[in-house]
């Protein structure tokens, strides 16, 4: 058997070496994972992204209801049920205003105009308004989740 300078044969050296290498890699991976997980916040000191907005009966049909604190528009229609759109302009973040007279959203900052379904009609906005998932919570209230974007065809039938 060929014992090298360290007094170990090649096989032993390779197996120790591999074990060491694996251990090192797993150590690095675990450490890296732990650091990343550490840096991700577990709680946010902000209003929650998912929240309840009250009873369906509180919302009228027709023009959407604007909720200022949450910056959303709540649509309700007899045929199509509930839909919730973001009131934040996709250009630079100003709050858009809905005008029942022309059934469009107008942004006061740089003049973007959005259609009732959120599509950009006019102005510097690059994307349509974001629609959020709205579901029925177990106590009968509507729940909006801003972390879950949905296509503009999404409806909640109540």
């Amino acid at each position, binding site marked *: 058997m060929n014992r090298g300078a360290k007094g170990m044969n090649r096989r032993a050296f390779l197996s120790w070496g591999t074990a060491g290498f694996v251990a090192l890699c797993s150590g690095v991976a675990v450490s890296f*994972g732990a650091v990343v997980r550490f840096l991700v916040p577990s709680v946010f000191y902000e209003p929650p992204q998912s*929240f309840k907005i009250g009873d369906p009966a509180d919302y009228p049909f027709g023009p959407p209801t604007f909720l200022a604190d949450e910056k959303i528009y709540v649509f309700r229609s007899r045929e199509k049920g509930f839909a919730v759109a973001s009131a934040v302009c996709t250009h630079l973040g100003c709050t858009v205003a809905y005008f029942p007279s022309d059934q469009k959203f107008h942004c006061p900052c740089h003049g973007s105009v959005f259609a009732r379904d959120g599509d950009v009609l006019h102005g510097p906005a690059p994307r349509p308004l974001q629609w959020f998932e709205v579901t029925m919570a*177990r*106590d009968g209230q509507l729940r909006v989740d801003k972390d879950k974007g949905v296509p503009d065809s999404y409806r909640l039938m109540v």
Partner: protein
Amino acid sequence: MGRRLPQAFFALSMLALVLLIAAVWQSSTPSWKTYQRKFFQLEAQEEPNAVTKAAVLATPPEIHQILLPGLQRVDRCTTCHLGVDDPTMKNAPEPFRYHAGLGPHIPSKFGCTICHGGQGLATDVKAAHGNVPFWQDPLLSKDYIRASCGRCHKEGDVPGVPELTEGRRLFETEGCHGCHKLNGVGGSIGPDLTEEGASHRSPEWLERHFLAPNLVSVGSAMPNFHFTREQARALTYYMLSLTNGEMGTYYSSDLLIPSPEYGRQLFVQKDCIVCHSIGGVGAKVGPDLLGVTKRHSSEWLDEQLINPQLVYPGSSMPEYDLETNARKALVAFMSTATPEDAQEILARRGNALTPEDVAIVAGKEDFARFGCAGCHGTELQGGVPNPNAQGGQVPSLLHLSDDYTKDEVIAIIRDGKVPPLDNAAGPTPPLYMPSWKHLLSDEDIHQLVDFLWSKQQKEKEGW
């Protein structure tokens, strides 16, 4: 060098790796995740089909937090108490059960700890329930939880918590102010109670203390008032509600609409009719109050109620320690008060009004407000034990005129008096007459003495 050193290094590195994994494991398996998993299993049972079941079971565990800047707290109770706002969880086992009967006090707006106590910032059971060292606001037991209503609802009757009203009433009438300061009013023989609710004394201690002060607080000068169990509990409730909570505007009095009915109750309670009239009915000492809300802004009226001397220096209107809501209620009443109301109030009162009444009523108000009854008795009978004072007790005030002139009494109230010792070698008596000149103006003291004189009994003659 041999193999020893590299082997030792390798072994230690393995140990470090193991310890690192142990630490990561320790942090990844907090108890709240177990609770959340159980809850999702409960929820999944109610799901109709396998797809939604799987979706519910796959919900990622996360800490739920209710941010309450207005209440200056952060509550994480809903991390485990996930069913608290879900009516379908009515019969679920704790900690998942639905919390019925909250009315407007929904968890997302109020959190949990404002009523229940406990440590909202914590995420494991023992720490969250506050039963840990260095957290002095543990969960309130069922017996005392309704006392928390008083933390916000500081005035009027709180529906469902008659103990608070009773406790407040007892405090005012039994003369607690005589030894204890509350909101700046009162004596300094006992501790200031303005923030007693935040002092972290347990409710059980407070109740035992009201029943037998000396057993609980050894060497205390507080006499035993022989309260019943119900009275002690009512007072405990009142104590627990005395926090200083600076609530954000959402929670402050602005949202609680003070009613004219409450204002009328206060009008009667404070005997305003003794100086004021409404539409000509009543006394003529102060201005007529009919339509006063049209002549002055509500801010002006509020200021007048807080500090009459500021608006009319030299006015004989006493300072009433009214809370914001009470003042608003009075103003609300004044906007609707009619001469008929005044007529009714006068009739209920019984005795006719005399000029002396003004001073006597003011003096009576001060007697109650500053807690003289605490030592001298609600009927001025005295009798509270005062060891080693001459006579062994706090003197009665019913025969003052036999021993003192009015001026002497005025001087005693102003400057205070240490009772003469029964046994000169013995200890100083625990109770003494404090000096009130810093809290009472000369006029107040005169009015007090007028009140006392109106109560004097003629000494029985002979044997």
